[in-house]
Each structure stands twice: as C-alpha cells, then as structure tokens.
C-alpha cells in the first residue's frame, strides 16, 4: 500500500537552465504552476545559487513550452528575470528559436547508419541524414530527407533532400551513380568513376566536387541557416 505518493513530475525542477555558446536558455516546465515556476526561478537566480549568474551581461533565452500564458503571468515571470541586471532577455516564447539556442550545437537532425549492401529493387528511405556502410548497387534507390553519404560504391540512384531541401548533398567513396537527385533536381551522373566526391546544388544546377572541398562548402551551408530546418 502506498501511503504517501507524490506525482513523479514534482521531483523535476520546474525550470531547466542550459548554458550554450549563445548564452543561457531557461526551459520552463509547461505543466508546472506559474507561481511554482516563479518561486523556483527566484531562488535560483537571486538565492544562494545566484552567484553562479554573476558577471558580464549574458543573453537569456526563455522557452515556456506549449503553455498559454496570460499577460499578467508573462509579466510575473519576466519580473523575476529583471531582478538580475546582467540578464538580457533575447528570446521569449515557445518558438523553436529559444529551444534552438540550446540545440544549435548538437545537430537535431535524425541521423542513420545503414550497414550492408543495398541491392537493386530494395528501396531504402530515411528521415534525416544517412551513412551507408556498403555499396549501393545499380538500380537500387536510396532516399533521405537530408544528406546521403556512401562509404562504398555508389552505383545506383541516390535522392537526397527528399521534401525539398536544396542544400542536401550526396557523397560517396566511389562515386559512379546512375542518377543523382537533390530535392527535385534530377541529374544523370558523370560518365567517369571518381573517388571521394560529392554532388550538391548551386542554384538549380547540380555540381560535383571532390570531398576535400566539402568542409568549406559545408561551413557556408551552415551559415546560410541550414540549422533552422529540421
């Protein structure tokens, strides 16, 4: 018989703080009572632990999750943040922006590793990026909403960026595909067999480059806001 039971949720603090390169992200538990959130937050930033937050101006991102807040509640919570004069509230909301700040440097995209040979007539599709450890045989099709990397021979058809991501790429250790598709652009492969190459879109035109040029290209791609996409 359980005499004193408590909802398990209560053991979790109603506020989670994450430090990122951008600043601090406060994730407010969307199920906790506003008063409880405020009380906890106040002790956290002005109480004994407040010392941790001392220092130069810091960017603060607040994510209150899916809850609906009244104007009063909003001010109630923001008032707590105002108690620290080095806090600069940069984002307030349940928008991905606030959560992104904590996720920006872990890639939130799904990633898959597929071990084995992809045979003709064996369609494979993935949500996110995929690494194939093995060959993709002629007339086999691999599809992914993100990038496709083949650690082996790509002899079949690869379709990256299914769903419209034009920044997706197809790369292979041995690059001799029958056909490459990125988003909705289709291209027949170059006739030669190349090693360590990748295909990408420039405008609506498909290009192929050696893998050694991939890193600078990838940095450009990241800068152009690829991480907003999921």
């Amino acid at each position: 018989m359980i005499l004193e039971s408590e909802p398990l949720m209560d053991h979790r603090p109603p506020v989670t703080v994450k430090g990122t390169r951008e600043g601090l992200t406060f994730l407010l538990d969307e199920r906790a009572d506003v008063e409880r959130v405020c009380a906890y937050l106040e002790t956290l930033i002005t109480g004994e632990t407040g010392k941790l937050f001392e220092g130069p101006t810091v960017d603060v991102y607040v994510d209150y999750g899916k809850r609906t807040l009244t104007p009063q509640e909003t001010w109630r919570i923001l008032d707590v943040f105002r108690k620290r004069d080095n806090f600069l509230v940069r984002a307030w909301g349940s928008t991905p922006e606030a959560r992104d700040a904590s996720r920006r440097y872990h890639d939130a995209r799904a990633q898959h590793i597929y071990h084995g040979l992809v045979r003709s007539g064996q369609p494979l599709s993935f949500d996110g990026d995929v690494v194939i450890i093995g060959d993709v045989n002629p007339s086999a099709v691999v599809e992914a909403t993100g990038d496709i990397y083949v650690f082996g021979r790509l002899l079949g058809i690869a379709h990256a960026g299914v769903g419209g991501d034009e920044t997706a790429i197809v790369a292979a250790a041995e690059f001799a595909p029958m056909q490459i598709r990125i988003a909705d652009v289709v291209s027949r492969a170059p006739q030669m067999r190349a090693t360590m190459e990748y295909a990408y879109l420039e405008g609506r035109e498909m290009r192929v480059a050696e893998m050694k040029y991939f890193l600078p290209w990838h940095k450009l791609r990241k800068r152009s806001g690829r991480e907003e996409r999921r």
Partner: protein
Amino acid sequence: MGTAIVMTSGKGGVGKTTTTANVSTALALLGKKVCMVDADIGLRNLDVVMGLENRIIYDIVDVANGDCRLEQALIRDKRFEHLVLLPAAQTKDKRALSVEKMVELVNELKRSFDFVMIDCPAGIEEGFRVAVAPADMAIVVTTPEHTAVRDADRVLGLLERDKVGEPRLIVNRIRPDMVKRGDMLDIDEIVQVLGCDLLGVIPDDERVIRNSNRGEPVVLDTAVPAATAYRNIARRILGESVPLMHLEEKSGLWGRFRKWVGGR
C-alpha cells in the same frame, strides 16, 4: 534428412536448368541420392536436358492434387539409379502449385534423398515464391552480363529478405578471351557487386548446349572443362574445399581454358 537447394536467377536463359541438371548429375556421380524437382510449371525443360521427356506419366501437379502417389511421379535417370526427376506439368500454369503443397512435397522428398534440387522458374512472381519456399540453400546463377547481374542482385535481395540459407553464386558462360579484352564483366567485379560467396565459374562451351540437346548432361564428358567446373561445384556443395579460394580457382581454370583455346 536431406538438403533442399533452389537454383534461381531472376533473369531467364542464364542456364538454371542446365546447371540444375549438371550439378545434380555430378552429385549423383559422387554417390549421393539426388532428386531434381522442376518447379517451372507450364514451361518444363529439365526433363529434356536429362533426356527423360518420353518417360513422363505423372507430374508434380498430379502429386500435389493427390491424383497419384509421389513415387509414381518420380522418374529414375537412365544412367544413375539414385538420381530421379520430379517433372513439372506442361498443361497447367504456376498457380497450380501452392507454397504449402510445395513445402510439404519437398519435405517428404528430403526424407529419402540427400539432395533435392529445385529448378526455379525465371521471374520473381508466384512461381519463384513457390520454388524458393522449401529451400534450405539457394544457388543464384548469373552470366557475365549487366542484365543478368542486375536481376541476380534483385533475387539475392529477395532471398535475403526471406532468409533462405546463405545464397551462393555460380557465374555461368564466362568467356576468358572476352574478359581479357574488357568486353565482358570479370568475376571479381560480379562477386563484388553481388556481395555473396562464389560457388563456381562455368566457362562458356558449345558442347554444354550440344549435350543438353542430346539429353546428356555435359558433366559426364570428362574432356570438357565445363564438366570439371560442374564437378567442382558438386564437391564444394558437399563441403569439400576444392582449391576454392576463388582467385586460385580462377587462374587454374583460366589457365586450363587458355591452353584449351590456344591448342585449337
């Protein structure tokens, strides 16, 4: 309890039936009790290659329908007492045999034979499913052509999905002179693409066709290199390590073959 081996390819005309006849005969030569099952219902050929077409009274569909006993439909080979054929029906089509019936039949044959060799129809439809269902092991036959390799790849995918033993590969009708000139896929390339164990390589030889037309499997003619290749395959099926290591085998076979070509 015997082993059921299905001989399949996907593409037609690569030599499934010829290979079934020759490998079965080679196994019989090695003293094994072998039953060949022609699963290509409606397009039966195995009886012709074995030279047994005039002895057919009942066929596999009659057995499945209960019109005769299994033993009544089995045709004993002219040359070997312990080599028999269960012929396909010629008047019916592939729907005449269900997966359950086929499994039941082959399991019954496995009780009295060491090997049940199933000759699979071309294609990957119903007939293929029926032929593959009872198999403990699959042999995929291909020729060194892109079309055949592509279909073999597809069939291997299906066999892997259905978890039919560990499929093994026979490359049929290789012509070393063409490979040398780069006009034909070489064996390494095929094996690499298909990613499965090589069971043997059969050189192209017109005598294989000539003997099939006469109803005498070429494997009985020791002078033909292809016959040796078939015998080696049979020995490998029995687990013997005939100088396999397919590279060695290739050079040995090619060496012999080149000599034979040059000697003419």
